[in-house]
């Protein structure tokens, strides 16, 4: 387990992911804060959905990339072989990676939401608009964002162990989060709100009129995360090492 944490910390990948995420969050928040008319940014709900929510969305996305890369990068560079020689039991290896992916994911989720709050406050202040979010909103956003990103790290690990190949894994996750889920939630909200991205957003208190309440969403996303781990164990057990 310490080994998996060391793996994350001894290359620049995690720092690169965090930097890219921070930049994207700040950009998305700033663009919306400048671009939207003032009456769309007046209430706490609007500011959550259109501004700081980007921190939760992108935090979860990057957490899943971190989780997927924790396996696909080992396949790509061949380090999966030494890893399996030291830890030949696949379930143990998957659990160690799960701890690192969830921990790293939580850090990314927290960083993403905190960056969004910071950028949102700055840009709203520059425009002379008032900040409507209270302490309870922020606590839910940051706590829910971190917890959802941790679980998304597990989902990413599941995808990585099944797909194995880095580029398709990353493209698949991006396509799902950026296109498929958005379409699902808009066209069939009854089904769409059960999708993992919508559950993650629900955990941060976004779009309460469409999405599930945070606690229910957390339970369901937790079940998805556990299922992803089970899939990862089965997939790594059934397939020969690359």
């Amino acid at each position: 387990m310490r080994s998996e944490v060391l793996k994350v910390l001894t290359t620049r990948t995690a720092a690169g992911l965090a930097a890219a995420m921070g930049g994207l969050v700040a950009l998305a928040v700033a663009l919306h804060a400048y671009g939207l008319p003032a009456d769309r940014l007046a209430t706490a709900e609007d500011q959550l959905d259109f501004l700081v929510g980007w921190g939760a969305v992108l935090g979860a996305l990057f957490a899943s990339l971190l989780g997927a890369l924790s396996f696909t990068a080992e396949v790509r560079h061949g380090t999966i072989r030494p890893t399996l020689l030291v830890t030949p039991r696949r379930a143990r290896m998957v659990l160690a990676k799960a701890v690192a992916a969830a921990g790293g994911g939580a850090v990314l989720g927290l960083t993403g939401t905190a960056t969004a709050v910071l950028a949102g406050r700055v840009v709203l202040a520059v425009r002379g608009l008032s900040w409507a979010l209270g302490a309870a909103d922020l606590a839910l956003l940051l706590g829910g964002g971190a917890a959802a990103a941790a679980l998304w790290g597990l989902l990413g690990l599941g995808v990585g162990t099944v797909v194995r190949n880095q580029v398709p894994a990353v493209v698949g996750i991006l396509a799902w989060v950026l296109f498929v889920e958005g379409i699902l939630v808009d066209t069939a909200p009854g089904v769409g709100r059960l999708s993992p991205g919508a559950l993650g957003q629900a955990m941060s208190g976004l779009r309460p009129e469409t999405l599930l309440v945070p606690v229910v969403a957390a339970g369901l996303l937790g079940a998805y995360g556990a299922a992803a781990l089970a899939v990862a164990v089965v997939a790594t057990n059934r397939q020969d090492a690359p």
Partner: protein
Amino acid sequence: MAPAQPRIPADPPPGAGAVVARHLTKRFGATVAVDDVSFSLAPGTVTGFLGPNGAGKTTTLRLLLGLARPTSGEALVLGRPYAELDRPARRVGAVLESGDLHPGRSARDHLRVLAAAGGIEGRRVGEVLALVGLGAAARRPVRTFSLGMRQRLGLAAALLGEPELLVLDEPANGLDPEGVRWLRQLLRSFAAGGGTVLVSSHLLAEIAQTVDRVVILGGGRVVADAGLAELAGGGQTLEDAYLELTAGAVS
């Protein structure tokens, strides 16, 4: 079935040997990569694992090390299937490909990662880096390493847990003559200390100077399993014997 050649012994006795392969077979679709391979390695010996490209050497090593599952048959390492060993990195040191390194990670960090996962004390990292002559390059990212340096780093990883068994796939590739001699002495002294070595190679002249026994694969089958003296001697070199044996195995 044709009568077995005299050089192929009967089944290894159950439980004996640091490494035991029993009727190992691995199919990929219609291709049979490893075909009913059986052999046994006595503790304290160095065995050369030879065969043409595609003969099934690497696949056999992967089966022995639990990286792939045999279609049928059994592979035992130190008396058990590899995956059932407790802390395998402290008992078996193995290198399959010298390129199995993350290019952005330093030599030292690679070994720290493996030591942490293998339950090996951190001080061993510095010791094995010095042993393989990479002390000065320890903090450089692996992308700056030559092939020979990668081989040395792979060996350092294999030696990290002070194992009883070394399994090495073409460890001499990319080593300079001095490195080749160093490797030979390392393997000999490892065996002299009671360790067992299984080493694959195409460098027959080098193998002839290093090993006690050879197991030769051809077309996925064992075509020879004999002491070096039985194959090479009486005016015949290991190369002569190897080419004669493997020519017969190609269908």
